[in-house]
């Protein structure tokens, strides 16, 4: 070593920039999400012999039974969502307004079903429906009951987390300015919890459209929803048709997310923009 040009031994740096921290997930995403998605797209646009064709789409939108399955799925999803909202909102509101430490325990009780094994829970519910004599008679009703039972916590949690953060003095302010209970709800609580309502809808509507395990269990196997249709195509080794259904479903989901404001830039719209 000579004087004047002392070189520092380069230190090995273990510092990451923020982008690099996402690298493991990016690899995972590419392997298990993007690649399969491309495969689905490929199969959707090809015929059985591998040639490019739109025949699968023509089949999906002309086959009356497929349309019926799709409509039935949307109906189940929509009804489940509405029932969950009607049941879940009051619960989330009351829970968020409990002052004491018991709040946490109560919340846990309401979301407990999520912690019980899915299969066990489904079987128990089935037995219960059988016991009260609904099983086998009202397949649609039973499926909705089952869906609500399973997805209610997914409605309560986002609503609760929005409501708990809401400044309680806003309700007092509205009452102070002359609003009755209905008005306070309609013009203060509801609009301010809209983001919770929308994320609750997304969390319940989409899965309940496709969760065919539930419709199979409670609907006595008689009720077909889109998830079941895909399953059936796979059973017949018809990957192309299954891919088309999956792709149509994906588009519906994107549309629903778009509609519920999932892509809007300002999540928290406040007043009029300038």
């Amino acid at each position: 070593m000579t004087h004047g040009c002392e070189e520092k031994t380069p230190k090995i740096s273990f510092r990451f920039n923020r982008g690099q921290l996402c690298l493991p997930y990016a690899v995972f995403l590419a392997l298990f999400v993007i690649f399969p998605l491309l495969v689905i797209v490929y199969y959707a646009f090809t015929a059985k012999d591998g040639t490019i064709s739109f025949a699968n789409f023509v089949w999906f939108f002309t086959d009356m039974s497929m349309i019926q399955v799709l409509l039935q799925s949307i109906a189940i999803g929509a009804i489940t969502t509405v029932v969950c909202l009607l049941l879940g909102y009051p619960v989330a509101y009351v829970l968020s307004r409990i002052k004491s430490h018991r709040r946490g325990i109560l919340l846990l009780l309401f979301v407990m079903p999520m912690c019980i094994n899915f299969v066990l829970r489904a079987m128990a519910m089935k037995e219960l429906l059988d016991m009260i004599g609904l099983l086998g008679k009202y397949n649609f009703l039973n499926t909705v009951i089952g869906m609500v039972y399973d997805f209610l916590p997914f409605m309560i949690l986002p609503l609760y987390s929005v409501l708990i953060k809401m400044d309680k003095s806003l309700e007092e302010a509205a009452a102070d300015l002359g609003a009755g209970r209905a008005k306070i709800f309609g013009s203060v609580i509801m609009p301010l919890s809209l983001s919770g309502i929308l994320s609750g809808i997304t969390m319940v509507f989409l899965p309940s459209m496709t969760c065919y395990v539930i419709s199979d269990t409670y609907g006595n196997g008689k009720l077909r929803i889109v998830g079941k249709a895909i399953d059936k195509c796979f059973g017949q080794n018809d990957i192309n048709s299954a891919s088309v259904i999956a792709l149509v479903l994906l588009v519906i989901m994107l549309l629903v997310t778009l509609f519920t404001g999932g892509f809007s830039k300002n999540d928290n719209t406040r007043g009029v923009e300038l």
Partner: protein
Amino acid sequence: MEKNKQDKIIELIDLTRKFEDGLIAVDGVNLYVRKGEFVTFLGPSGCGKTTTLRMIAGFDKPTSGKILLNGQDISALPPNKRPINTVFQRYALFPHLNVYDNIAFGLKLKRVRTAFESKGCKPVYKMKKLSKSEIAEKVGKVLKMVDLEGFEKRSVSTLSGGQQQRVAIARALVNEPEILLLDEPLGALDLKMRKDMQLELKEMHRKLGITFIYVTHDQEEALTMSDTIVVMKDGVIQQIGTPTDIYNEPKNAFVADFIGESNIFSGTYLGDKKVRFIGQAFDCVDEFEKNEKVDVVVRPEDVEITDAESGLVKGKIINSIFKGIHYEMTMKIGKTEIVIQDTVEKEVGETVGIRIKPDNIHIMAKEFSSNKYDGYITKKNTVCFGDGEFECDVCQLYDGSHLDDEGYLITADGEKIDLTDLDVKVEVGLKDIEITDDQEQGGAIGNIVSIIYKGDHYQLIVRTDENEEDFVFDTEDTWNVNDRVGVIIPKNKIKLSLVTEQKK
């Protein structure tokens, strides 16, 4: 203060609010507010001032007592049915509405009695909504008043703290309430802005003639703005009066300490309008029982500095701080310190004399001369009181008695008494209590809830958790509020007496 009954717009009668956890936030408050008055509830946090305001607004229901509005009991009415509007501590503006819609919120809900032409004869009255143009006109007017014209379309989240404050005031005032409640409305603003808003609020009050009830912990704010100040502590009103009254004639040491700077001394009333404190007899204007122990309050600006020889008392200046318009100096007389404000500075170390005019010496009856408790004797011949257990001399209960080996008390007549569970009255002097950081060492454990400096010592109150028993005592040591301490009382300082007069 006796005025025509018609003048009272709101009256609180024995108003009490007890929370679910047993805490009594407001304890039997009696008060009335005259129409058009600017009343301030003043006190430290937790004194019940906000709870009182919330009960007037209707957000909290009183546990007992009445709230009369123009003579009518409104304590059961929900907030939306009361002609009262509130400016909230942190504004509580609706974040999803713009400035205009925030202010118009109340107006859109309002129904006014309007005459309708009916077929020829008498007009028919109906409750009618305000029209859009009426609302716009009112909002425009109030925006002008709070100096926010042109802000109608702005989102409230883009406004500064001061602007949000103005919107909150406009939103309440636009409804033309009979009473405007303000819950520490300026607390979140910086000093300069706060001073400006104080004057603006005062001006609005003068112009509108609406009754203002204002809550604050800032004594200066209360003195600046109010017609009447209600000083509260622990849910109880300490004093009601004009700012001048409260400042010049504080009723007790708490009020004196809370309102402005003050020197508080322990003194003795000597009779003939003379009071002795800081080692000297002073002329005064108040009259008390001869030899009664009293608290003496002297405002720093009321102490006159003289030559060392011509003053009534002399002492040494030990520090001096320049405060802008005056110097704040501390003078030491023996062990006692006295704070003096004067525009002329004296050198630190200089010996000077002081004089105090008789009418600047405020004398107040002592709140506590001793601590009194109800207690009982345990099996071990200790005494339980004030949420604690203390060693004591049980023999003082019966003259000439003594304890035998088994712990029974033998009276002078030779009678054998089992003292277990005997109810007793306990008295402990203010100078007989000590506290220690080692909580287990004390007979009782509590938190320091109050510290008042009394010239040469502090008067502390230690409060226990369970039954909120207070130990009041004097100490020369420095402690901090909220310190958790053990209470020690020497065995021979606990005075016991029997509850029912038995033979001695």
